């Protein structure tokens, strides 16, 4: 079950073939290497189109979202493996 976090994070992105794929995320001074994007979806909030990603570092599952107007990333939730 996803634990709600709702904190700003930093992300390193690979832009390839018209797709943005998160590669690393920085949360609480720790870098997590993203092994796989499990699901991506979009959500419209007014004019802003939020990009949601469900990603895993091979152990934890993260729900992250990109806000294009402020160019910021947020970690919405995490399912820790330990």
């Amino acid at each position: 079950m996803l634990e709600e976090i709702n904190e700003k994070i930093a992300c390193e992105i690979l832009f390839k073939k018209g797709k943005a794929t998160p590669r690393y995320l920085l949360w609480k001074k720790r870098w997590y290497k993203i092994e796989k994007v499990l699901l991506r979806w979009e959500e419209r909030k007014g004019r802003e189109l939020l990009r949601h990603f469900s990603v895993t570092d091979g152990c934890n599952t993260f729900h992250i979202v990109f806000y294009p107007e402020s160019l910021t990333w947020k970690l919405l939730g995490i399912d820790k493996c330990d």
Partner: protein
Amino acid sequence: MNAFFASVEQQANPTLKGKPVIVGTGIGLRGVVSTSSYEARPYGVKSGIPLREALKLCPHAILVPVDPSKYEFVSKKIMDIFFKYTPLVEVFSVDEAYLDVTGSLRLFSSVDNIITKIKEDIKREFGVTCSVGMGPNKLLAKLASSLDKPDGFARIMEEDVPHLSAKLEVSELCGIGPGLTKSLGKFNITTMKDLAECDVEILADRYGIIGRKLHLMGLGKDPSPVLPYFHYEDAKSMGHSITFGEDISDLMKIKRILLWLSERVGRRLRKVKMRGKKVTIGIRYSDFTTISKGRSILQYINDGYQIYKCGLEIMRSFLEPERDVRLVAVSVSRLVKGIYEPDLFEDFEKRERLLSAVDKINDRFGEFTVKRALLLGKHIRKIIFNPLRPVK
């Protein structure tokens, strides 16, 4: 799609895979099961049952709050996959579609090949499985899709109908709900075969145009074509409802919720440039007694506040004070598109300009950025603006 919402959640969070997952709507445990994974179904967890009951049946199930934007996005992407194989795609619901592949056979050699490719594409992209039914018409294709679940494929051709029809109950046919099943049962029509053998004139006499359609359904025939999106008919009604986290008897609170629902209906109507002439209000009390009343009005409207005023009058005519209310619903019907009906006695132009300005702001910054003062306040926000908070 098989257990669509639950499958999408399992794809988004692999720790849910192989576990009983219940996707719930509503607030807390007062909501209902939207869908459940196949792991939860042997325990009797079905769509539509209260969450509290579902958790009694399967106490170790994992509850996940429904996330409409996620399912809507995945659904659209899956529909895009269908369009790779045929332009004749009729979206039947968020997780169901009819495809007419007659014209695509020269490109993809066979129906089986198309089905295999579609199933592979969906599984690869979204980790979701689907059941496919094939038939000469929509009725039989839909029926076939329910024969081999999950992740199956079945076909029903016209020649199979005589063997199947004696076994198939009328309730299994798409379009025959519990009410009609009960009504047909009174005339000893319980199977598809009974329906086919019943005289068409008797059915037409009892059910009108539907009676003739029912007779064809009994024979396994369905003349309706696959209607792609560019042939869709306009909506006949639009509505919203909400089940509260706790029962409410305070009239002021109910009024505010009615306004919130009415504003949402008005906004949707304006988005598609429609107006309606009939407002219907539904109330469900805590003992599940449900009352619904509608009233036609003189003008075509799409302003949330006008819908609210009309709805309030209707609600006052039947709402029993001091009785706890569980659910409120508002809908507008008798819809027409593009009609412009200025009011001779009110400042119509001013109201239209105001609505247009508010719509523009809410388009830009999100729903209810600008709202009526009645919708302000922490208490109302708790009830209506966060209805899908995670269930515990």
